[in-house]
């Protein structure tokens, strides 16, 4: 029983990490329908920027956090302007290949600057955040992740559902020429969505870095874990991404705990194939409305 509970808690906290990493991905997909294969590298960029500012430059934590957010926001603008904008209106595969190439580029650059070792942040989270549930203890990092995750969910849920800018972003993803005819600033929407996605990815990357240490290879591998998560939840649903992450996290820890550790890495993909066969648009995704 204790083992079970421990696995449950581990699974949920791992899953929350996945959900958090998936958020930026869903952001981009929702507003520009781009499947971002460089997402793992975006996580890594945020994590390393924070590392460089907080640990190497020794700036206070809150300041380096703010600087990281500003930095990644600008970076998002730049990447959109120089790499993605020329491709507006091109074929899907071209855009996918572009994000793939960008990912490889970023990874090489990060490895060049920071090397392939595991780095760590200096500790700054208060110990008081940790929860003791009697049988199992949840470390403060995971509690912090949980709080951040919930905050994000509410924030972005509201942003997309109710704010005008959020609705404009969705309208662009839906029907670009109609949005253009109504005066939606399409290029600005694209730039903004990439900038926001960079920020979200940076935050997730920082949280991942706090828990697992910061390593280029590991973070870019998590970028691929995002796929089962978002497929499970539906590519364009933020709530789905959160739930999908938790389900995948639980699946992984329980498979690892009860069946075999080697199967653990692969189980999300097996589930993914099954889901795609049974419910192609995920649990909460929008069914494609096709009128001929």
């Amino acid at each position, binding site marked *: 029983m204790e083992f079970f509970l421990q696995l449950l808690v581990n699974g949920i906290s791992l899953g929350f990490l996945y959900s958090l990493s998936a958020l930026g991905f869903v952001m981009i997909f929702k507003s520009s329908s781009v499947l971002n294969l460089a997402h793992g590298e975006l996580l890594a960029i945020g994590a390393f920027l924070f590392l460089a500012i907080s640990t190497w430059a020794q700036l206070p934590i809150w300041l380096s956090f703010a600087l990281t957010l500003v930095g990644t926001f600008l970076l998002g603008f730049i990447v959109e302007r120089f790499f993605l904008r020329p491709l507006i209106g091109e074929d899907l595969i071209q855009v996918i290949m572009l994000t793939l190439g960008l990912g490889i580029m970023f990874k090489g650059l990060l490895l060049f600057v920071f090397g392939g070792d595991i780095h760590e942040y200096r500790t700054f989270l208060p110990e008081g955040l940790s929860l003791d549930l009697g049988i199992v203890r949840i470390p403060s990092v995971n509690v912090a992740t949980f709080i951040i995750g919930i905050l994000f969910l509410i924030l972005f849920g509201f942003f997309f559902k109710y704010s005008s800018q959020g609705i*404009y972003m969705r309208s662009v993803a839906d029907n670009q020429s109609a949005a*253009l005819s109504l005066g939606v600033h399409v290029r600005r929407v694209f730039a903004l969505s990439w900038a926001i996605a960079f920020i979200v990815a940076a935050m997730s990357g920082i949280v991942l870095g706090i828990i697992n240490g910061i390593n280029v290879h590991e973070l870019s591998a998590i970028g691929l874990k995002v796929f089962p998560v978002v497929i499970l939840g539906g590519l364009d649903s933020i709530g789905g991404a959160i739930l999908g992450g938790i389900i995948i996290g639980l699946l992984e820890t329980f498979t690892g705990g009860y069946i075999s550790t080697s199967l653990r890495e692969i189980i999300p993909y097996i589930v993914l194939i099954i889901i795609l066969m049974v419910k192609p648009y995920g649990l909460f995704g929008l069914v494609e409305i096709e009128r001929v």
Partner: protein
Amino acid sequence: MLNFLQSAGQGGGGKKKVQFMENDTRLQINNISVVYSDVIQVLKGVSLTIKKGQVVSLLGSNGAGKTTTLKAISGLLKPENGKVTEGYIEYDGESIQNSSPEDITRKGIIQVLEGRQEFKYLTVEENLRVGTATRWGKPYQKDLGLVYNYFPALLARKKALAGYCSGGELQMLVIGRALMAHPQLLLLDEPSLGLAPLLVKEIFQIIKRINQEQEATLMVVEQNANMALQIAHYGYVMENGKIVLESEAAELRENPDVKEFYLGTAASGALKSYKDVKAYKRRKRWL
């Protein structure tokens, strides 16, 4: 009769100069040519004038260049790789032919695209809210009320996904969406496309009301010439990328050629037989 048409075309050109001098001109298109992908010329010297507060209808068969004319005005040619190569477009005396759609819509020119380009995954109300993009950050509740007043059917469906609405509802939706932008000049591209006759009548009634109550200038591109000429003040007929005929709407309604070819009634009022239409088509080349 041919002579009459020719002289009408030329006379229009002369009249335009005069209109341009007057102060109530909303939009002035002077002799524009539009080329797609640098090779396909669609418009070959189109000139037209829209006066403030008027409803102007643009008639013509498929491929005549009506939609291209609208897109040239609203700046939507650029995403389709089209360009205005000659002539100029002036809106309230300002040149707009090379502006981006973002700037043009912010001047108050809103185009309602052909074929009901709704946002499928947004609800009806969210669709309407996209219409506020040109005045982002300003309150929009009053405008919503206004649109629901014009189109009560939308109010009942406001939480439904637009992708699941009927064709009639969608046409109302896209017109309402454009109204949200407070248009000074509203360009409607085939509002009757694929709608039942009764619905067409209703839509056109509302278009007329919009013109009268909102003091918006309207340009309506239509296949349904009968309907369009009933609500319009002025009409243009296009063919092969040129304006071939222009006149007051009432005059146009009485024009025997328009009657024959676009309204489907002969001078006597009886329906024309197919044979005669074909004969007209042969003659049409001279226009």
